[in-house]
């Protein structure tokens, strides 16, 4: 896992302009991370962030993943204060997005939209490396429903996806949990 220290920018992060710069820097770092590896967004040392900063940096990073950017590698949030935690929760929920936060206890939690995501994350972490059909079987879902859930899970950074070429040809993806169980 590669660590990105957000606090290198400041202890209190405020504006959209700065948020965009931080996101672009994180994306540069993500580009250097090996496929299948994970970037830890380490917020330790950051006392507070505004909603505008959180939206422009983290929420838009997740949003870019829904469009397919850097989905072959994962990312996880760590080291948030209560204030930062609450702000990230707010900005992600407003955009109906999610990210995974690693608590000091080692426990994982979803920030943002919840719904079926915690159960899906749990199943993905148990499977570690899987196809959509295997997740569908584990959760008793249709393949289409499993694919829909995987879209949000991949965007959250918890799972990385990689294109594979099946024996019979066509297009298929394999998924790998990008964070420790």
């Amino acid at each position: 896992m590669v660590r990105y220290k957000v606090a290198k920018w400041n202890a209190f992060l405020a504006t959209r302009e700065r948020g965009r710069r931080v996101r672009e820097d994180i994306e540069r770092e993500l580009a250097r991370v090996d496929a299948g590896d994970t970037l830890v967004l380490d917020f330790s040392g950051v006392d507070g962030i505004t909603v505008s900063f959180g939206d422009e940096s983290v929420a838009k990073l997740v949003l870019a993943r829904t469009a397919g950017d850097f989905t072959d590698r994962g990312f996880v949030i760590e080291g948030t204060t209560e204030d930062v935690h609450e702000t990230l929760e707010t900005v992600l929920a407003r955009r109906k997005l999610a990210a995974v936060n690693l608590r000091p206890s080692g426990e994982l939690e979803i920030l943002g939209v919840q719904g079926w995501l915690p159960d899906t994350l749990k199943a993905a972490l148990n499977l570690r490396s899987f196809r959509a059909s295997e997740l569908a079987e584990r959760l008793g879902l249709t393949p289409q429903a499993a694919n829909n859930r995987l879209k949000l899970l991949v965007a959250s950074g918890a799972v990385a996806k990689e294109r594979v070429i099946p024996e019979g040809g066509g297009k298929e993806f394999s998924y790998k949990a990008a964070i420790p169980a």
Partner: protein
Amino acid sequence: MVLLCYQCAMSTFRLQGRAPLLSSREPPPHWPPTALDLGELEWATPFDVAALAVLWTRLQREQAPADVVLPADPQVRAYLVDIGLDGVIDGSWGGGGGSRVEPPLVRLTHLHSGEAWDDVLGVLWPGVRAALGDYTMASRTLDIMSELVDNAVTHGHSALGTWVCAQRYTGATSGHARGIWVGIADGGVGIPDHLRGNPKYNGIRADEELIRLARRPWVTGTADRRGWGLKEVFDDAAAAGPSDVLIRSGRGEGHFRLQRETRPYARYRQLKRPIPGTWVHVGIAAV
């Protein structure tokens, strides 16, 4: 008490009494003034200071020099030095210190970009936190200031820049409730004309109606669904309530009283003459 008096015939912009710009319901009447008379100024809030700074900057940019009469009261003069207005308006201000009001929480700061505010926060955050001694209040105050700055430098961007400052009041001399007052002023296009850039709102003629709409999330109608800034200011101010927010922009004014879990009291009105840009006051209850 006369809070604000203009001697239009002489083009003198005369500010007298307590908090003349915040208390007054009128913007400067004639532009450019040939003189700025602060001689009888008794008390200036962060709103007054920020608005004065942006007006003076405009005069400088327009190369319309005005004579200045500084406050006669040495305490008022000292306070305006403490908050940094002496760095903007020319004159023999003398030294600071000795004011009855405690040192400014955030001195007058001139910004041309959001990143500049983030850079300032590197120094400001530990200082404000130490001064207030309360993490939540410090964070809330800087959240409010940051969202207002972000709005101003983005939507109200102009060569005049954005001016912002803040003061904590104990209430001992002002007679007001204890609190933190924030003032921010820009010389940009203003909220009403900015919103009219969105076809959805360009038919709305009343500026005060557009100030009412500005509180809605995603109001700017940009493709990336931003526009939470002002809503956040109101949410933070309500959480710290009772709070006051005053917005003047263009010909519109919105005045809001906010309290946690209470429907906000809002009053809108049309100004007789337009404000150049957007001027905002936020007063939140302090620890």
